[in-house]
């Protein structure tokens, strides 16, 4: 055979093999991304805010129904078509209509824990869940009049440096009024890239409204507070489980305290409303060496969460402080430690939230929380609407003076005396 021909065949063969190989790797990459995106494990690149679509001049032609539900739903399109044709006033955008329709559908469920969050609110919640955010460093809430109220100013934060105080009300952000906005709309305006400046118009009792300029910074969401007490007891307070860093913050606080050889540890979960299930499992696991932590059951399935040995908190004598504000993830941790005999609970009966929400990010960046499961303690107790009863009940005194904490005192006493 002619060597040219042989070379040519060899070349064609090799290139075909190479090309196939490249196509296969391309498809493999595509496939992997597809699987990851489908399971929601990739940060989605979807636009976080949908551009506002102006209401069309002509009535929308409703999509042709493809199943029974869409058939039933046709009456919605009839209604909206008639509104577009006849309504006298301003029409809301289709986006607002969509969100209102979702809210309506959710309210039909009659479940207080299933909820829908518009893209802006969802984006803020996702940022908070990372454990860090870029802003001024203050807790805000809406007061009865719908004004943005500063509830707490973080220590060493830009807000503190600028002189902001609790009970201040924020009226304007960079000249834009925030009165009447939703809480998340207001937070969205206050937050911004670290290093940038924001000017707030502040209302404070006894003063004329005045302006404050704050330089934003990258800040940690406050999650824990810990202290090595003079009596040799370590104290960790966990505010909530809603950041992905909650259990690692507890672990690092614990590590720091253990270096002082404490005689015992108090884990304070009072007023902790909960957060993420996996964070609760991880916190409980820090103190339990093996066996069941909690069981999650949904329609047609269950998952048993087990503890893993080798954590730093498995030996230390432990008391957990709880009260009526300890809910959900707090109850998972407290319930596991109580059922497994790892710790005693001191304080008051807990809130009683034994349901789990799954969080879904929708195509436009909004979020849907759906009550999808219930959870049970290792001894198979269902605590929904019941709560956990502490081993030692210490009610909070009605007329408690500032600085007095009988529940904490009782926990210390228990750890020091063993009773």
């Amino acid at each position, binding site marked *: 055979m002619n060597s040219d021909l042989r070379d040519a065949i060899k070349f064609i063969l090799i290139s075909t093999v*190479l090309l196939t*190989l490249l196509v296969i*790797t*391309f498809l*493999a*990459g*595509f*496939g992997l*991304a*597809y699987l990851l*995106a489908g399971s929601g494990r990739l940060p989605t*690149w*979807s636009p976080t805010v949908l551009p506002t*679509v102006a209401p069309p001049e002509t009535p929308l032609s*409703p*999509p042709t129904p493809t199943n029974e539900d869409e058939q*039933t*739903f046709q*009456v*919605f399109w*009839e*209604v*909206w078509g*008639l*509104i577009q*044709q*006849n*309504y*006298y*006033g301003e*029409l*809301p955008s*289709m986006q*607002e*209509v*969509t969100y*209102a*329709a*979702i*809210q*309506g*559908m*959710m*309210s*039909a*469920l009659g*479940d207080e824990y*299933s909820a*829908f969050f518009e893209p802006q609110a969802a984006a803020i919640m996702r940022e908070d869940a990372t454990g860090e955010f870029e802003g001024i460093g203050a807790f805000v809430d809406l007061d009865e009049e719908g004004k943005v109220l500063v509830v707490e100013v973080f220590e060493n934060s830009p807000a503190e440096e600028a002189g902001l105080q609790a009970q201040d009300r924020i009226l304007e952000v960079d000249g834009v009024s925030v009165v009447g906005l939703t809480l998340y709309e207001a937070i969205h305006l206050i937050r911004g890239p670290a290093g940038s400046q924001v000017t707030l118009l502040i209302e404070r009792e006894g003063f004329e409204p005045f302006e404050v300029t704050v330089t934003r910074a990258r800040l940690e969401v406050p999650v824990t507070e810990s202290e090595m007490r003079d009596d040799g007891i370590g104290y960790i307070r966990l505010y909530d489980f809603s950041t992905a860093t909650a259990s690692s913050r507890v672990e690092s606080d614990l590590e720091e305290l253990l270096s002082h050889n404490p005689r015992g540890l108090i884990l304070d979960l009072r007023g902790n409303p909960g957060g993420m299930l996996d964070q609760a499992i991880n916190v409980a696991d820090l103190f339990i060496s093996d066996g069941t932590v909690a069981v999650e059951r*949904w*329609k047609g399935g269950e998952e048993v969460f087990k503890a893993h040995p080798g954590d730093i908190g498995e030996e230390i004598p432990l008391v957990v402080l709880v009260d009526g504000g300890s809910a959900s993830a707090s109850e998972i941790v407290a319930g596991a430690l109580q059922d497994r005999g790892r710790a005693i609970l001191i304080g008051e009966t807990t809130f009683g939230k034994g349901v789990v929400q*799954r969080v*879904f990010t*929708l*195509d436009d960046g909004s979020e*849907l929380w*759906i*009550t*999808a499961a*219930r959870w049970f303690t290792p001894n198979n107790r269902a605590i929904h609407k019941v709560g956990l009863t502490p081993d030692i009940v210490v009610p909070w005194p009605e007329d408690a003076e500032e600085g007095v904490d009988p529940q904490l005192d009782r926990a210390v006493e228990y750890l020091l005396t063993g009773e």
Partner: protein
Amino acid sequence: MSSKKQRIVIFFCGLLICSVLAFAAGFATCLLWDRQQRARRARQPLGVFWQAWNLIETNYYGEIPSARARTYSAIRSALALLNDPYTIFVEPQTRELERDQMRGAFGDVGIALQRDAQNHMVIVPYPDSPAQRAGAREGDILLAVDAQRVTTETTIEQVQAWLHGEVGTVVTLTLSRPPTPPFDLPIVREEIQVPSVTWYALDRFPEIGYIHITGFTERTSVEILTATHELRTAGVISIVLDLRDNYGGLIDPAVAVADEFLDSGIVLIQQSRNTQERVFQAQSGGTATDIPLAVLVNGGTASAAEIVAGALQDHHRAPLVGEPTFGKGSVQLIYELSDGSSLHVTSAIWLTPNRRQIQGHGLAPDIYVPRGDGPLDNQLERAVEYLRSLR
């Protein structure tokens, strides 16, 4: 040899790099594609709504309400965005009732009630009503209903509530018709067509006619003609038109009533979003365009009743006596939907002839008279006083 080895190494390095690049390209392509898909789905009308709907179907732990219940809830929530209390969605069951109310049919005995000069409650049976057929007569004094005594304190509304009841049941009226002693009159309640207009010459001032319109129904246009005609025949020389607690009703009868008292000019301007203004003109030929008139209004005077009051006020045809009116000046179109529910849509607002907006404002009375506490109708008294002062 070494150069061949080198070539092989270079070849495999190249292959590795190409593979990694191809993998990365595949990965990125998928992400871009996925992003586009999401954006496309999100742009579809209610795209994310259906995403949420399906996620609930597959994941929700509790009992999921029917698709119909979820649909209705979504509709109500979407309509709430409009912030208009009159644009509403009515589910199938409640609509039957609503239709009945529009027709004005319920079980009753068919009488109008009024207080005479001695503060007795006297009855006026409607023509061919169960009360009339049972033998009740105009001017009979009502002493009790089903043994519940009618005192000087009892209000007309209270007695109406006692008379009202299920069709086929019996209500017993205790009547006095001097000189005959008081007697009981059992009457079977029937579904009756309620007249929307009642009228009579005032007991103390027979030269003043009183016309009370409780609501504007299909019957009103005819009834108002009969009322003015009969009153004039009876020698009445001025009229009190009572629109208090009249929550409105149909628009055409309201225009007809205004027209009856107006010779010409605009009665009402209806403004909608898309189409041009619609102007309702008074037609010449009203039979009561010159008779002195006073109109009674209060906070319960709404909608179509405000149209009548507003037109008469703007044309200086009659003073409004009483309290500020309700301020409901928008028009609802009612549509029946395919599944038996219905939709009320605010499609237009009303302006008085002088282009005053009724919606949210109401009409201020020319003579302000708050309602007194006692049994005396001081608003009517003031209107009578006005009409008598004209002479």
